[in-house]
């Protein structure tokens, strides 16, 4: 079965076709990127004298973890922690409930174009605005306290969860959904039977993850006055009470780890 086309190829090596076909362009991109990287690192200035001085302060901070002080500010820590948990639970529930319809609307394979555009717009706005920026704005509107934090976290949850839920819906198995439609189901029934079972494990997993994020964020939001354990943490730092700060951080780490463990159990059950 010998013929010229085959004969030309025999004995020649084979390479996977390059991603960027033009060799000049390819090498320009590679060399350019490496040059930029080197230049970028060189602009980062390191003041070694300052680092040496800072080591002591850092060490004091680390040492504080060996003797965390839960006692002297316990009532502040407790109320801050409770406020953070309230904010987390309230914001996660509200955020998740709002994310579901927006997630459905933001999935191109099930939403009509105008709905899709609006929902994607909401997602884009929510994701573009970082939590701290939203919190500063909301603190300006609603004043200091957990209300601003609750609204910030709800808003951030919507962007996060809707986007990922929409992407999961877009990746679902079309045939399963088609079979439900073929039975004469109405749209709501179709979503309940054809779509929901396919995306449920991911929705539960993402929700658990978001609760985790919301709790950690609630510790940051206190820095800009939006309530929660972050306010207590901020005060501790301001007073150089590293042992109290260490106690708060240990509690936050403990709660996040507990949430992680819980989410593992729940995700295994809904698989």
């Amino acid at each position, binding site marked *: 079965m010998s013929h010229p086309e085959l004969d030309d190829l025999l004995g020649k090596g084979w390479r996977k076709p390059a991603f960027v076909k033009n060799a000049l362009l390819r090498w320009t991109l590679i060399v350019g990127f490496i040059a930029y990287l080197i230049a970028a690192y060189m602009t980062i200035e390191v003041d070694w004298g300052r680092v040496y001085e800072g080591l002591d302060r850092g060490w004091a901070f680390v040492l504080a973890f060996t003797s965390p002080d839960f006692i002297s500010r316990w009532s502040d820590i407790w109320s801050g922690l409770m406020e953070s948990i309230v904010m987390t639970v309230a914001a996660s529930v509200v955020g998740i409930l709002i994310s579901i319809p927006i997630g459905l609307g933001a999935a191109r394979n099930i939403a009509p174009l105008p709905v899709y555009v609006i929902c994607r717009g909401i997602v884009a706005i929510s994701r573009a605005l970082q939590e701290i920026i939203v919190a500063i704005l909301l603190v300006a509107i609603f004043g200091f306290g957990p209300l601003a934090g609750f609204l910030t976290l709800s808003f951030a949850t919507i962007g996060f969860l809707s986007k990922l839920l929409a992407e999961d819906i877009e990746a679902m198995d079309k045939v399963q959904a*088609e079979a439900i439609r073929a*039975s004469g189901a109405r749209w709501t029934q179709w979503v309940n*039977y*054809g779509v929901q079972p396919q995306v449920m494990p991911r929705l539960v997993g993402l929700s658990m993850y978001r609760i985790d994020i919301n709790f950690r964020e609630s510790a940051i939001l206190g820095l800009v006055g939006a309530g929660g354990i972050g306010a207590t943490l901020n005060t501790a730092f301001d007073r150089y009470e590293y042992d109290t700060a260490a106690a708060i951080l240990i509690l936050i780490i403990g709660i996040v780890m507990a949430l992680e463990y819980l989410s593992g159990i729940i995700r295994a059950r809904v698989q």
Partner: protein
Amino acid sequence: MLRLQKLTKTYKTGDQALKAIDLDVPKGQVLALIGPSGAGKSTMIRCINRLVEPTSGEVLLDGVDLVKLGSGALRKARREMGMIFQEYALVERLTVMENVLSGRLGYVGFWRSFLRRYPQSDVDEAFRLLDRVGLLHMADKRADELSGGQRQRVGICRALIQNPKLLLVDEPTASLDPKTSRQIMRLITELCQERGLAAIINIHDVALAQMFVPRVVGLRFGEIVFDGLPSGLTPDKLTEIYGEEDWEATIEKVDDDEEIEAAE
């Protein structure tokens, strides 16, 4: 009962999947639709229940043109047409019972279906159907725990619980082994007989089609090129449908198969 008139489907890409198909299916008749991949078999049955929107032509079910129906009336019409799919298309994370009962979605309201509170008559019928296909003990298993043959039986129950007049069957045996394929084909044709159902069965296994159905329609490039008895499928006809190939083996295989059947 079902009548296709000048049914045409042109995809956006310009591919003409169906070219003015005319077809009559009388009440209670089971027919097999054969043809090479891409001949338009799957498009044709999806145009009947409008999972794919036909470009032009009429689909008359008991005299009603389905192509012109609005969404509410279309849902009612879909109840009359049960569909069985190639890869079973069960909702994997729902139980067998939920999958079967999902065939009643066109009949029950949202809250009943959401809360899984189906009327007793539907539940009874679901149990009867599962018993008929030998899966009564599997009712509470999740669909993804079942084997291929079992899943397709559940798919059949889901289509039948709709109490349809017509079954649209898309490659029911494509992912099954030869023995299970025959069992499934036998089950479908038997159930159609018991209930007086008409059926259009897309199938690419010619021998299997010849074994079980009284009428074969051959589709090539979106046109009907054969319509007749299975025995009329001569090598010439098969060449016309599928293109040049040695057909003697296929036809002989049918005889062999029948002997095996008799021996079983």
